[in-house]
């Protein structure tokens, strides 16, 4: 009983930390985009957290953890159904690490993250209503079904695929949808001139910095809570690997981007930290500190090349979501087969299969959703709305009514 209490308290703290990550995402996204679209991005982020939790309560939790199922798709019924003891109290034998309620809320906080990743990638040009419809379907259906394949005990779990806290299950699931959405949307006006990428600087770098440091703090809960108990050895190791990977990712990204572009770009430094965090997430409990530093460092280097690679493909990703969440998510997932306790050829193959399965499922589902929206209600704002800002046209409000708006 006392152990359960300790475990459960830790899990609730982690739940709160993961909730805090939504603020981090919101600040990062508005910081790296222009002032005229700030309110629109904040609106999307607030919508995702609120609707995400409600959907996870209504269907998500029981889609993701259906109990015994065929390994591909299971559903344990609508709403929450807490296990009860004979005298009507909450059955604490549910799990030794947490109660039923904590389990729901912790997983619910994760669920909304996948759609938040897409929000950053489509920023400054996607209509709000189709985005909301997309978010509802993706968070309510796609994410939990995809999650059930591994965390719900589905077929990938049986294959030996390993994803500790979601390099693939959360970050790549969001990342794949981001790629599809960006392809179907097209770049922002002015992003590519004669095929060459142009800089569209973000309007508030201090907020972007706060966002990344808040995300790092949130990751203490994201990875720390994924231990699913307060196991002293595992939780502390996980926090160490998480932080070392973040630090290594940031430093290496800073060094590589400075060497390549001859300037000390803080936004790259920040993306490098996130790349390190996403990279370590798949194997945070399986790595030694040295492994974690190597994984983070490689993720940091990947970020620099991935950002320019995405530009070369003429994909417009204002906040670097594809580089951070998709490409580093894939790297982190594969790294479980290369470093740490599970390293080995068999594991590497399992990881590859996992990455491929999620790619196929997420690309297909997000394409169907977004393509249907594009052909019916349209997904892109008009040219005038885009130039004058989504805040004014989609919301009729200003994020900063007292500040002058610059023309760009």
């Amino acid at each position: 009983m006392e152990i359960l209490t300790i475990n459960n308290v830790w899990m609730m703290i982690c739940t709160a930390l993961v909730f805090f990550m939504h603020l981090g995402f919101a600040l990062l996204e508005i910081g790296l985009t222009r002032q005229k679209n700030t309110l629109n991005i904040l609106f999307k982020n607030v919508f995702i957290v609120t609707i995400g939790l409600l959907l996870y309560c209504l269907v998500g939790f029981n889609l993701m953890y259906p109990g015994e199922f065929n390994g591909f798709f299971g559903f344990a019924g609508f709403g929450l159904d807490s296990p009860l003891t004979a005298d009507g109290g909450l059955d604490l034998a549910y799990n030794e690490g947490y109660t039923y309620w904590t389990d729901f809320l912790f997983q619910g906080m994760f669920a909304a993250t996948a759609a938040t990743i897409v929000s950053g990638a489509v920023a400054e040009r996607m209509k709000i209503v189709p985005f909301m419809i997309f978010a509802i379907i993706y968070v309510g259906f796609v994410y939990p079904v995809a999650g059930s394949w591994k965390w719900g005990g589905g077929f990938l779990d049986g294959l030996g695929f390993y994803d500790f806290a979601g390099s693939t299950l959360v970050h790549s699931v969001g990342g794949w949808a981001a790629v599809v959405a960006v392809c179907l949307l097209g770049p922002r006006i002015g992003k590519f001139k004669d095929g060459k990428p142009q800089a569209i600087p973000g309007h508030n770098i201090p907020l972007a910095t706060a966002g990344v440091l808040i995300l790092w703090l949130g990751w203490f809960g994201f990875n720390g809570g994924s231990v699913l108990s307060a196991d002293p050895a595992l939780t502390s190791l996980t926090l160490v690997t998480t932080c070392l990977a973040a630090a290594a990712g940031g430093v290496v990204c800073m060094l590589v981007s400075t060497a390549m572009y001859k300037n000390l770009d803080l936004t790259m430094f920040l993306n490098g930290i996130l790349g390190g965090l996403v990279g370590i997430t798949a194997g945070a409990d399986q790595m030694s500190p040295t492994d974690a530093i190597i994984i983070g460092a490689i993720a940091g280097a990947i970020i620099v090349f991935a950002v320019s690679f995405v530009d070369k493909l003429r994909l417009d990703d204002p906040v670097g979501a594809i580089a951070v969440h998709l490409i580093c998510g894939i790297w982190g997932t594969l790294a479980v087969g290369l470093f740490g306790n599970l390293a080995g050829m068999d594991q590497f193959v399992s990881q590859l299969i996992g990455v491929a399965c999620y790619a196929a499922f997420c690309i297909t589902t997000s394409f169907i959703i977004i393509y249907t929206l594009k052909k019916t209600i349209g997904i892109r704002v008009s040219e005038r709305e885009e130039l004058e800002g989504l805040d004014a046209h989609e919301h009729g409000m200003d994020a900063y009514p007292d500040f002058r708006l610059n023309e760009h």
Partner: protein
Amino acid sequence: MKKIEAIIRKSKFSEVKKALHEIGVNFFSYWDVTGLGNEKTGHVYRGVSYSTSDIQRRYLSIVVNDDFAETTVQAIIKSASTGDVGDGKIFVSDVTECYRIRTGEKGGETLK
């Protein structure tokens, strides 16, 4: 009466202000402006280099009596100069009348 408008470097503002106070110009208006010029500043953002010709400057508007205009202009030139391109410009124009709102009186006396 003359209106002296000066566009100066923001970094020179406190020196100009001090120089104007020293010659007895205690009242004037100023605001921050963005302009375009020959000077280009190089930037790199997320691996993409770009340059901007937007220039941030401070705009001063000072109204003085005719016999004081040259002193004021010289004070600004002396205090705002760095010798590099981009130090700014000064424009002098005639002002036909001046009123003090509180008392309704008009003329050069209101500037003192």
